[in-house]
C-alpha cells in the first residue's frame, strides 16, 4: 500500500478478497413510536489486518452499524458478508468489545472472564484455553490481577480485560464500540497506544467505532466518515501514517480539519466547491 496522501479511499491497493463486505446496507429499528432508519445504503470493505474506523457524530448510526455486523440486527436492505458468508446471527468469530464497564461477568475473576467465551463456545478447550488466557492477560499487562474480581479493577483495567477476552478467542474480526469513551483522557491515550502495540504484535483485524476525530486518525489506518440522520457514507480516508508520534503535526492537523469540515461545516465546504467550479 502506498497512498501517502490522505485523499481517497484506498481499496485499489488490495487484490485479495475483503474479509468483511458491507454492501448497500440499510438498518432500521423500531422505537415505541417510530421506525428509525439508522444507516442508509452504506458500503465498505474491511481487509485482513485493517484497523478500520467508523467515524461520525452521534446519530450517524455507527454503533447500529457495528451491531449489524455483530449479527444483533438483521439488515433491512443490502448485505453483510464475512469471508463470503452472510452474517445472520451473533457468533464468536466476531468478538465485541463494548464501551460499558459492565460487559465483564462480575461473578468471574479476570482469568475466568477471559476463559469463559473460549470454553462456552467450544473454540478452545482445556490446557490450550488456559495457555491462551495466560498469554493474552499478559499481553494487556494484567498478569498480577488475574485472580481478582472485576469490581476491584479500574475502568481502564476492565477495558483491558474485555480486550484480552475478545483477542484470546482469535476472532476473524474484532468489533470495538467506543471502547475508550468512558475513560479519562490520560488513560484513553495510554489504551490507544497499547492497542496499536498489540496490533504491531498480532496484526488482528479490527472494526472500531468512535466519535472522536483524533482517536479515529490515531487508531485507524482507514476511516469511514458517516453523516447523521440517517447514517450515510461521506468519505473513506487513509490514515495509516498517523499515530501519537505525529499528533499535532502539520499533516495530522490538516486531516483533522478536513474531517471536521466534512462533519460539521457542510455549508462552508459546499461553498468552496462552488468557488472551484
Amino acid at each position, binding site marked *: 500500500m502506498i497512498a501517502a496522501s490522505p485523499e481517497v479511499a484506498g481499496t485499489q491497493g488490495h487484490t485479495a478478497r475483503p474479509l468483511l463486505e458491507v454492501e448497500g446496507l440499510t438498518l432500521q429499528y423500531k422505537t415505541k413510536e417510530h421506525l428509525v432508519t439508522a444507516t442508509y445504503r452504506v458500503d465498505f470493505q474491511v481487509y485482513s489486518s485493517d484497523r478500520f474506523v467508523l467515524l461520525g457524530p452521534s446519530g450517524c448510526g455507527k454503533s447500529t452499524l457495528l451491531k449489524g455486523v455483530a449479527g444483533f440486527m438483521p439488515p433491512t436492505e443490502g448485505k453483510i458478508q464475512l469471508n463470503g458468508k452472510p452474517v445472520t446471527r*451473533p457468533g*464468536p468469530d466476531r468478538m*465485541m468489545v463494548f464501551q460499558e464497564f459492565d460487559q465483564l461477568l462480575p461473578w468471574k475473576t479476570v482469568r475466568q472472564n477471559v476463559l469463559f467465551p473460549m470454553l462456552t463456545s467450544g473454540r478452545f478447550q482445556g490446557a490450550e484455553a488456559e495457555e491462551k488466557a495466560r498469554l493474552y492477560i499478559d499481553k494487556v499487562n494484567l498478569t498480577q490481577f488475574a485472580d481478582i474480581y472485576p469490581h476491584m479493577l479500574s475502568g481502564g483495567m476492565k477495558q483491558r480485560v474485555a480486550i484480552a477476552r475478545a483477542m484470546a478467542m482469535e476472532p476473524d474480526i474484532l468489533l470495538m464500540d467506543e471502547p475508550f469513551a468512558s475513560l479519562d483522557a490520560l488513560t484513553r491515550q495510554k489504551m490507544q497506544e497499547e492497542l496499536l502495540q498489540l496490533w504491531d504484535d498480532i496484526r488482528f483485524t479490527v472494526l472500531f467505532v468512535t466519535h472522536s476525530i483524533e482517536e479515529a486518525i490515531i487508531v485507524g489506518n482507514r476511516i469511514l466518515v458517516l453523516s447523521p440522520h440517517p447514517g450515510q457514507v461521506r468519505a473513506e480516508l487513509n490514515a495509516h501514517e498517523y499515530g501519537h508520534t505525529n499528533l499535532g503535526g502539520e499533516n495530522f492537523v490538516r486531516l483533522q480539519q478536513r474531517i471536521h469540515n466534512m462533519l460539521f461545516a457542510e455549508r462552508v465546504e459546499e461553498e468552496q466547491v462552488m468557488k472551484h467550479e
Partner: protein
Amino acid sequence: MGAIERPLSAWERLTSVTAVRRIFVLVLLVVAWQAYSVPLNNPLMFPTFTASAVAFWDALINGSLLLKAWVSISVLLMGYAAGVAIAALLTTLAVSTRFGNDLLATLTAMFNPLPAIALLPLALLWFGLGNGSLIFVLIHAVLWPLSLNTHSGFMAVPDTLRMAGRNYGLSGLRYVFKILMPAAFPSILSGLKIAWAFAWRTLIAAELVFGVSSGSGGLGWFIYENKNELEIAYVFAGLGTVIIIGLLVENVVFRTIEEKTVRKWGMQS
C-alpha cells in the same frame, strides 16, 4: 493535631463491633423485661425472663421442643424446596416466551398480595389435615415473592452483558443458566430471603390454626398447647425458639451465602 496515626483505645475498638452493640441492646431488653415482670408478679399474664429461660431449658432438655422444632423445619424445607422449583420453572418460562412473561406478571400481581394463610381453609378442604395442606400454603408463601424478585432480577441484567453472552453464541437454557441466573443472583438471593421469612411465619401461623397431624405437631402447636394448659412461660419459650431459628437462618445461612457470592463479586446492591 496530635499524632498522624494513633492506635484506637480498647473502648473505641470494642464499640466498633456491630455484634457487641447488638448484644448490648439485647441485654437492655432483658433487664427491662425482668424489671417489669418481677414486681408485676403475674406468671399467668407475663412470666419473668428467668422463668421463661428455665422453661426453655426444661423444654429443650426434658421436653419435646427440639423434636417440635425439627417437625416444623422439615415441613418448611419440603414446602420451600417445592416453591423454589416451581418459581425456577415459571421464571425460566417467563424469560424465554412472551406468553410466559404475561402469565407470570398476571399471576404474581394476583397472588402476591394474598396472604398465604388465607388459603389454609381451602387447603384443608382439598388436602385434609396434614402435611399436604401445610406444604400447599408454604408453596404459595414462597412462590410469588421469589418469582417476582427473580423475574425483576432477570429484567435488570444490563444489555451489554446480554449482548456479550449472545456474542459467544449462547442461547436458550445455556444462556439462562450461564448469564441471566448469575447476573440476577443478588435479586434471586434477596427473593430467597423474603420467601424464607414469609414461609416461616406462614408455617407457625398454620400450625397454630390446625395444630397437630399424625401425633407430633410443630412449634406452632407447642405454643398453642401450652397456652391451653396455661403454661405461659412455655409459650414464651416457644416464641423464643421461633425467633432464634429465624435469626440463625438469616444471620448464619443467608449471611454465609452472601459472603461467598454477591459480596465477593461486589454485586451487593
